[in-house]
């Protein structure tokens, strides 16, 4: 009987198996892994709706944890994680100041990293919260990003139009792309200048630099490719060269900012599609599935400093990397 119970789901899948859909056994493994991760994150959430991190109470961590739930299709107001998602949205909402900044209680280098991640999460959450308060909040957050763009086209740590680097810029671009999807007001000139800046960071031999003229890095190359794709420059040589650059790296947690790279790498290769995606996603998938802890979290490895008392940073990024297969977040639709 036990054997039969085990066999019936497989049988049902085989009989309904369809070439249109990915291998159901593989998807079951991925979905199970993500569900365990979300269960872990739900347990770690503080009563006020935020998550613990090595930086303290940081909206960057709160944003990616919220995105991890949204990326599995758990939208506000509905489903088994309704309290978790609603509390997270309400917490981030309360941190917004008059200028529109989702201000972290404990900021890292500067507030713009965290603000961009929180803005992205809130814009996606707005899709399930149809009220004026939410709309005004996300529009103000987007306006802040628009007004903080440096003359070069990029962004830096502080909400002021002074300096720029690719790492901060990429996160603003993803948030702006989500804003455009949500029909929020984003001036076209902002997008054009941002694209110019990212293109300037491209290294001719492949990959992207931290600032124009620098050398390439794995994580920022993944992010640079994705930001160009999200801005519509799919066929730009910098994208092709960047994909080629990433194909040669020694994939594993020894890569600097591994989780950041894994997430943006999955999204970038998904956007590229075809052979690039076919070659990249099994590496990330297998690595993450094979390294998940028994409690559903992932170890932080070299980024443990962001995790702090709990593995929320690494777990949220890993879950989001696997959620690329699920195609739920509107911001990343191809």
């Amino acid at each position, binding site marked *: *009987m036990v*054997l*039969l119970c085990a*066999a*019936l789901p*497989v*049988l*049902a899948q*085989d*009989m*309904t198996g*369809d*070439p*249109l*859909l*990915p*291998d159901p056994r593989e*998807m079951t493994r991925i979905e199970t892994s993500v569900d365990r991760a979300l269960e872990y994150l739900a347990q770690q959430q503080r009563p006020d709706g935020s998550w613990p991190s090595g930086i303290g109470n940081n909206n960057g961590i709160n944003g990616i944890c919220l995105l991890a739930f949204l990326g599995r*299709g758990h*939208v506000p*107001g*509905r*489903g088994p994680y309704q309290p978790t998602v609603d509390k997270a949205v309400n917490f981030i909402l309360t941190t917004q100041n008059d200028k529109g900044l989702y201000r972290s209680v404990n900021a890292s280098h500067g507030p713009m990293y965290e603000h961009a991640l929180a803005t992205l999460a809130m814009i996606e959450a*707005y*899709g*399930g919260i*149809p*009220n*004026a308060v939410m*709309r005004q909040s996300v*529009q103000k957050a987007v306006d802040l990003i628009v007004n903080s763009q440096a003359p070069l086209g990029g962004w830096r740590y502080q909400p002021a139009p002074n300096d720029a680097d690719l790492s901060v810029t990429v996160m603003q671009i993803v948030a702006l792309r989500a804003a455009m*999807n*949500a*029909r*929020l*007001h984003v001036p076209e000139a902002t997008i054009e200048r941002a694209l110019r800046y990212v293109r300037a960071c491209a290294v001719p031999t492949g990959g992207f630099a931290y600032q124009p003229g620098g050398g390439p890095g794995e994580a920022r190359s993944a992010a640079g490719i994705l930001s160009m794709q999200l801005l519509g420059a799919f066929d730009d040589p910098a994208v092709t060269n960047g994909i080629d650059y990433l194909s040669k790296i020694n994939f594993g947690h020894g890569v600097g900012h591994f989780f950041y790279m894994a997430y943006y790498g999955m999204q970038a290769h998904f956007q590229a*599609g*075809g052979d690039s995606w*076919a070659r990249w996603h099994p590496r990330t998938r297998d690595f993450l599935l094979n390294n998940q802890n028994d409690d559903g979290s992932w170890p932080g490895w070299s980024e443990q400093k962001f995790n702090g008392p709990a593995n929320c940073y690494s777990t949220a990024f890993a879950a989001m990397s696997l959620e690329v*297969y*699920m*195609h*739920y977040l*509107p911001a990343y*639709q*191809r």
Partner: protein
Amino acid sequence: MKQWLLKSIGVGGDITSRVDDLQWMLARPMAAWIGLALLVPVTWFIIRRHRRNLPHVGAAARWVLNFCRVAVLLLLVMVLAGPYVRIEEQVTRKPVLAVLVDESLSMTLPAGPFEADELAAVARASGFDPTNADHRTKLQSMSRLMLVDAAMTASREKLITPLEERFDIQAYRFARRSRVTELGRTLDAPLESSDADESNLGDAIGKALDESAGRVMAGMVVFTDGRWTTGADPVSHFQRIPGMVGGDASPAPLWAVPVGAVNAMADVALLDALTPGRVAQGDSATIIATIDSQGFDKRPTKVKLLDSAGQVLDTLDLTLASAQRQQAHLKFEAVTAGPTMLTVRVEPLGEEQVTANNEMTVMIDVDPERLRVLYVEGWPRWDFRFLDHAIRRDKGLETTIVMEAALGDLVKKPDDAQAAAAQAALLPQDAAGFAQYKVVVLGDVSPALLTPRIQRQLAMAVEEEGLGLIVQAGSRHMPHRFADGPLADILPVHVQPPAGAAAADVNADGGALAPAYAPFQMNVTATGAIHPIFRLYDAPERNRQIWSRMPTYYWANHGGEVRKGATLLAQTVSRSEGDARHPLMAVQFAGRGRVLYIGTDSTYRWRRNIGSHLFYRFWGQAIRFVSGSAESRGGESSWMEVYPTRVEPGEQVTIELYAVNRDSEPIDVPEVQLKASGNDMVDTVSLMNVGQPGRFKGMWKPMELGQYSLAYIDGRGKSVTGTVQVAGSNRELRRPDVDRDVLAALGEASGGGMIEFDQIHQLPKLLKGEPRTETTSHEAEIWDNWLVLLLLVTLYCMDVGVRRVMGLN
């Protein structure tokens, strides 16, 4: 003599041959005793009377007359006593064993390639000499069906005879349909291709179970390659019988015998070619080919897209990866308008034994003009964000979007006030303005934007101008806050207004919480499965499986009942409500226009694990289906719409007809008939009135391949027609290897299992049940038959004859 007598009194011939004991009985023995007792004095009286009254008659004649009278009376006494015979017989009852042999197209494939050990075992099981090189060669290339026949012939003594001694064997062969045969007998007549191109194992099992109903069933043995391509899930036959699944109590354990080699044959198969269904002329479309291969790892090949003339339209180089699904994206430039047949072909490799699965023909409709669509949405919910993205990429649509939430923002920005006014102006204010579009999609829009006056104009454009309308429910406004307005009158479901606290809880945005169902699964109805909106494949069952397998939904508007004449496409199935079902999607005609209601705002959930393919296939087809115009659906002339226009044999076609009389008025009759013709046949199809004058709907199920025409002649003598193409599925050869996993699971689900081909001599040991001998008794009345009547008539005639001869009165 005994048997003759039993037959003469009407006891069945089959019983008389098995009679072991006979008992002659009387139903009313008392009547016999009294009758006989009375007969003694009556006999004395008759003899005395004849002697006194007929002294001139000779003694012999007088004794004959005495005999006749007494014999008649004796016969009457015996009839009154009710004589009958009780027959006892010994009957041996055997349990039924159903043997099902797959004779579909895939069974004509070679059974090999076998490994050396496997070849030797199969050779022994099928009567070949494993040491004989010719025999080995012959076995490797022998078809799967011929291998089964060879094994049946070779194992008559060891397998079939012992089985026949223990069981009543019911033998069937199955493909699309099942037919009765004899075990071990090869059928001479080959199957027609339209019958052989599907394996309907579920139907065959159902037939075997039905025909053995009321009898003990020892089990079923199925010889197959493990692929069933149509019909009900075979497991469902075991699940529906309480206590049967996997239990020893199963009265019909199934033993699956895989026919074919364990190792998959080297093969490249084109599993699927997914098209967008429709594209606009001048646009380009991507056709996604899914390829599976075995045994050709890292071998290069080409994937080609060809038109109906065989001209190559696109080519992709592909390096094969064994045992992996690969996808190739081919480009199609839509140059010519109309239905276009395209062939996707993976170039066969030299060693491939099956090349029929290397190509697939698909159809794309090329629209001559772009459809103008107005999409009015309340706020950027996720469905909007995905649909907005998809319809902007659909070059067959020219879409105008009005976002209600954005209007307020724009107004607050002084520099964009002009833009706000411009966007607000995009919403038509009268029916003529709406009629500039072919389709209007309404999202979660508020009554503040869609005022009663605008609703009336919109409804007028739908009813009189043939505008298509899609209404997608939302949690704030749609359609519950329009319950009493003109919009609700044209929807295919009755709208439920918010009740109780929700009705009073109108928030600052004017939204009120919708009455909702959650959580639920979507169940596509039988009609929905063949409907153009849900259509992915020609096979309805496959469509239903795909759509019904979607993840749990957490919101659906609490729509009321479906209106009379509307077509229900999908329902919610809520486990928390004991599998209660409520309308989720429905479509109907409102005047000349079609209206589609979608009760959930979560169609984005169809993107799970696959992206836009299903999501936009649905929306793209929905927009095209409802689109229409007053010209194509005029009120003064008849028109017909037939869908789908391409089906597989046995699939239903839906026909919708608008019919007018000689005065161009819609006819008011309960039923009309039209002719279906083609493929040397003519059929009559009845269409029933759907509750509106002139509107009729019906189904037709073509069974044979070919092109068919459906024609109706209206009251003015004008003919309206539609066409249907019936084509084979080509699924049989798509995956030529034997699927042992599925067969093992099926066997286990039934309480049986899988047994390898070379082990079939073990079947008598595995099958439970022995013949049982039972004693049964039958009773037959003796008097109610021709023999007694003949005796009576003879006695009467003898009496009358003697009297006439003697000159007596």
